[in-house]
């Protein structure tokens, strides 16, 4: 018995050494080709260039504007019922999103709330890209009947009553607002629309300018919300300096699928893991909602938007608006095409897709593996038939894109 007892630990030790040897022989860092290594590093935050200027918003990088915008972002007085702020759906402690399939303001929307980190780098905003700047995006929900539900004159009154000093420090004198209706604007509410139409053009123009400036201040704040470092970034950094990195074998296998067989990196590329473009990936229609044409409708909306880059409220010159000037405005590819979301933090914010119609990351990966036909238009996907193990590995990798618990701003980026 004593002999047997002595032998067992030796076998276990031998097996341990063997396993360690195999692990070292297949050291993750050593198994990447130069091409794969370059691709991996291109996804890292270290590859993120400095935040580009926004020529359409001259206060984009003014700290006073950002402070005003921060206050406005959290102010529920900017809503018809006094209960809805930007932060009601864009929760700072939840990556500036709300964890529900469809955003809820004064009513329920038809879309999933998008996170904010890094959005200042996106040429088009919303799932359908119907806005072309952060400041113009911020104006949309303010006038939506199911989000903030208010109107332009209401918001001008709020600024005059509560933010006059800080507003005027950034934008100059506020126009007179006392004569303006409490609610007036080009919104769904017919009374507000009538009141807006009855206003003198000069007043409408002045209110539009205040409205645009509210968006520009909020945008200045949102530009400060940047993605936080992740375990993946640490791994990519270690690869760059010749180290083996900190990811598990499963996570590395998932990364290999991400840049290889899975073809995820085609669209989820760059340090924010998005190409900022619009794709039909055959995402099923959301039950109970009207038909959603995605980019096909969004492209028309942004082109006609008076608050776009080429509009009179933009501070940009025509040469600054190339994304808008040269965007694709029609064609079958736009039908049910939706914006590629960043995958930073995505594993921590189900549900998924533009209407939150896929509940879990496992189901998302299964969708991309099977590549079902699109409910309208044509899906760009082809089946990749990932095995159960491969799907698990891919999910393990995606979790490495969550902000590190100890990183600054990790709760909300």
């Amino acid at each position, binding site marked *: 018995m004593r002999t047997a007892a002595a032998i067992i630990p030796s076998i276990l030790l031998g097996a341990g050494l063997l396993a360690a040897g195999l692990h070292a022989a297949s050291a993750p860092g050593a198994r990447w080709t130069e091409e794969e290594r370059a691709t991996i590093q291109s996804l890292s935050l270290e590859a993120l260039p400095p935040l580009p200027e926004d020529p359409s918003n001259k206060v984009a990088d003014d700290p006073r504007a950002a402070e005003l915008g921060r206050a406005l972002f959290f102010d529920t007085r900017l809503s018809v019922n006094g209960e809805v702020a930007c932060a009601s759906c864009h929760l700072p402690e939840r990556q500036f999103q709300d964890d529900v399939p469809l955003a809820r303001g004064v009513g329920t929307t038809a879309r999933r709330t998008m996170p904010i980190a890094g959005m200042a780098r996106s040429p088009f905003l919303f799932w359908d890209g119907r806005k072309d700047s952060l400041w113009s995006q911020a104006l949309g929900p303010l006038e939506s009947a199911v989000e903030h539900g208010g109107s332009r004159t209401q918001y001008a009154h709020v600024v005059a009553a509560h933010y006059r000093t800080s507003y005027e420090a950034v934008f100059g004198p506020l126009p007179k607002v006392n004569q303006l209706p409490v609610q007036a604007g080009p919104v769904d509410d017919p009374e507000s629309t009538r009141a807006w139409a009855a206003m003198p053009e000069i007043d409408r123009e002045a209110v539009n300018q205040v409205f645009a400036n509210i968006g520009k201040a909020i945008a200045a704040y949102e530009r400060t919300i940047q993605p936080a470092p992740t375990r993946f970034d640490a791994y990519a950094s270690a690869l760059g300096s010749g180290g083996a990195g900190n990811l598990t074998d499963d996570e590395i296998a998932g990364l290999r699928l991400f840049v*290889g067989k899975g073809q995820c990196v*085609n669209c989820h590329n760059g340090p924010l893991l998005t190409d900022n473009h619009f794709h039909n990936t055959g995402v099923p229609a959301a039950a109970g909602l009207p038909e959603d044409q995605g980019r096909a409708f969004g492209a028309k909306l942004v082109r006609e938007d008076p608050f776009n880059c080429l509009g009179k409220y933009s501070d940009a010159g025509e040469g600054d608006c190339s*994304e808008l*000037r040269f965007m*694709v405005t029609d064609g079958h590819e736009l039908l049910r095409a939706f914006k590629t979301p960043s995958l930073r933090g995505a594993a921590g914010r189900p549900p998924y897709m533009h209407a939150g119609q896929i509940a879990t990351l496992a189901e998302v990966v299964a969708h991309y593996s099977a590549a079902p036909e699109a409910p309208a238009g044509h899906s760009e996907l082809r089946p990749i038939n990932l095995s159960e193990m491969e799907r698990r590995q891919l999910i393990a990798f995606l979790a490495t894109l969550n902000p590190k618990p100890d990183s600054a701003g990790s709760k909300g980026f």
Partner: protein
Amino acid sequence: MLTLTSRRMLLFGISALVLAAGIAAAGAMMRSVPDNLDLALEKPTAAGLYKAAIAPEAASIVVGSMHAWTATVRTPSGSPVKAARIGINGGMPRHGHGLPTSPQVTRSLGDGRYLIEGMKFNMRGWWTLDLAIDGPKGPDTVTFNLVL
């Protein structure tokens, strides 16, 4: 951010990437590039009416960034074609999608050279750029292959 750091690097970088794909089987994108792809950036048009060339304006091409190219149109004997109308199309043949933007010739630069604005590549891989050239000798087309 993936860049090709100079015009010279673009020309040589493209060949190098394709070669790398052939020998190292890098990523899925690289594997989807066909063998023996014609990567010439200067070639006769399909019916031989013109010779066309394209070149990026910027020193580097960054995936996801807007940038400009120059197209040069000449007769087969090398004379500049100064009054061509050029339509631009393209996409990724293996992905089944077109260009992410709608590039246009915005002005003539003289000597048969034309400025193409609004170019963007939103991912790496094999792209085609199709020019529909309508000049004094009539319409013709040419397709260039690019591998980023």
